[in-house]
């Protein structure tokens, strides 16, 4: 192993319980999650629908208050959104009144860390990184779904987060674009050297992108198993058809399926 890489994210015994005002019932969503992510890793989170994956990611971003346990990024305790984390939402949620460049610098504008020229330069670099050169002055409605998600990712990367949180960023894309974007994201993250947590429903997507995969149990969510992905780091889309890949896919699928009866729903492929 050599020198172990530094721990970026450290989650300890994280619990979260929703209290429903009307039914006066407490609904445990997160049932004690422990997870640590090393620098440069991409860890995917998969699990049955409605198990609390998004809630977990929101808690790591500090968007919601947790009931117990703690989240640390680079050793610092998280209790609200901070510049060390950036979120890529499922819906691209780009501001329609801002151009591509203006959307990308949004986080930087809020944080006021850079002057206008430096922001513009960083945005330009990111635009090239995500492959959107010549679209700087376009408005989101003039872009395709895949391009909008690139802008979404660039906007998150612009603040140079220690940890990137992606909540099913490709869910709304068509199958072809999705495959292509998986490949693009892998290249982008490798170049930006970002640590990332990635939620997805697509197991092959999780395997393709990740160093490890955290399989969540049904609600209240715990980590059922952490599956390391022993594939070479430089991945190609062709790998999805190799026996190792398919075996891994089957193994994770089985883990999720075991949880399906507990959610009260039959998960079909």
């Amino acid at each position, binding site marked *: 192993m050599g020198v172990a890489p530094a721990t970026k994210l450290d989650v300890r015994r994280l619990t979260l319980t929703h209290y429903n005002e009307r039914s006066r019932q407490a609904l445990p969503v997160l049932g004690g999650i422990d997870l640590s992510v090393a620098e440069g890793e991409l860890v995917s989170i998969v699990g049955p629908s409605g198990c609390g994956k998004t809630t977990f990611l929101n808690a790591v971003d500090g968007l919601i208050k947790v009931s117990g346990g703690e989240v640390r990024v680079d050793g610092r305790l998280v209790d609200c959104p901070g510049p060390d984390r950036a979120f890529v939402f499922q*819906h691209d949620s780009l501001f329609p009144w801002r151009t591509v460049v203006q959307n990308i610098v*949004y986080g930087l504008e*809020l944080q006021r860390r850079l002057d206008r020229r430096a922001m513009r330069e960083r945005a330009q670099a990111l635009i090239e990184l995500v492959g959107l050169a010549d679209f700087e002055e376009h408005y989101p409605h003039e872009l395709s779904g895949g391009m909008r998600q690139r802008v979404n990712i660039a906007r998150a990367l612009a603040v140079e987060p220690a940890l990137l949180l992606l909540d099913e960023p490709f869910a709304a894309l068509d199958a072809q674009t999705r495959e292509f974007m998986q490949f693009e994201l892998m290249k982008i993250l490798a170049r930006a050297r970002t640590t990332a947590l990635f939620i997805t429903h697509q197991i092959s997507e999780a395997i393709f992108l990740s160093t490890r995969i955290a399989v969540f149990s049904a609600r209240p969510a715990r980590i059922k198993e952490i599956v390391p992905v022993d594939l070479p780091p430089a991945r190609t889309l062709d790998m999805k058809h190799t026996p190792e890949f398919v075996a891994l896919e089957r193994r994770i699928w089985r883990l999720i399926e075991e949880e399906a009866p507990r959610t009260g729903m039959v998960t079909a492929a």
Partner: protein
Amino acid sequence: MTATAPVTEIETPAAAPSRRSAWRRNENVLIGTLSMLVFLALWELAVRAEAVNPLFTSSPSRIVAAAIEMFADGSIYGHLRVSAEEFFAGFLLAIVIGVPLGILMGWYSRVNAVLEPFVTALYATPRIALLPLVVIWFGIGLASKVAIVFLGAIFPILVNTITGVRTIDADFIKVGRSFGATDRQMFLTVALPSSVPMLLTGLRLGLGHALVGIVVGEMYGATQGLGYLIAVSGARFQTDRVMVGIILIAGLGVALTQLLRAIERRFERWRPDWRG
């Protein structure tokens, strides 16, 4: 648009529809103009053939003649000036008060709680019912007309601004929060820009109400103005002069609506289905 057809050796199917749609756009304008001309011609003919009494309907030629006369002897300018003054004073006042108040009410729920009963009650009241009160308070001069135009215009502006500020896409709020936006930043970078379309809609609706305010206010008690012209000419059965007044008010309305559309276009280049 047709110039953007790709340069290929065969005629692309993309080129044909764009040419056809360009033709179709013009076609609509042509048909509209034509139907208007046919209508005016039939009107004129019906009067000349004595099928209808010009006392009731006037006729295009009579209206034109009346207009020329009124512009030539200068009697129309006083009416135009007075109405324009009332309109601009009242409408601008409604914007200056309505927009900031709407933003405050949309953003701060406490401010809204205090003012909402009044706004709801007044919005539901036909503003014309307030005319006698307005006249008691402001007399029959300029001030009462400004007040009635203001009362007509402010509520659509206010209500739409409130709605605009309040119905912000939850995703946008989440983005702002995730990037650590302060309340002030959230307001300036999310609430304000996303409420611009509703705000402009409010202005456009307010404009219509303001024009109604002019006419009604001047009919109730005035000595000059387009509404006064219409009322007095009507009482004297000078149908052609009534029509001149109506056409001028309508023209003012159309011109100002177009102006607002131009402003909207300026602000909403980002709108996906915005047609210039």
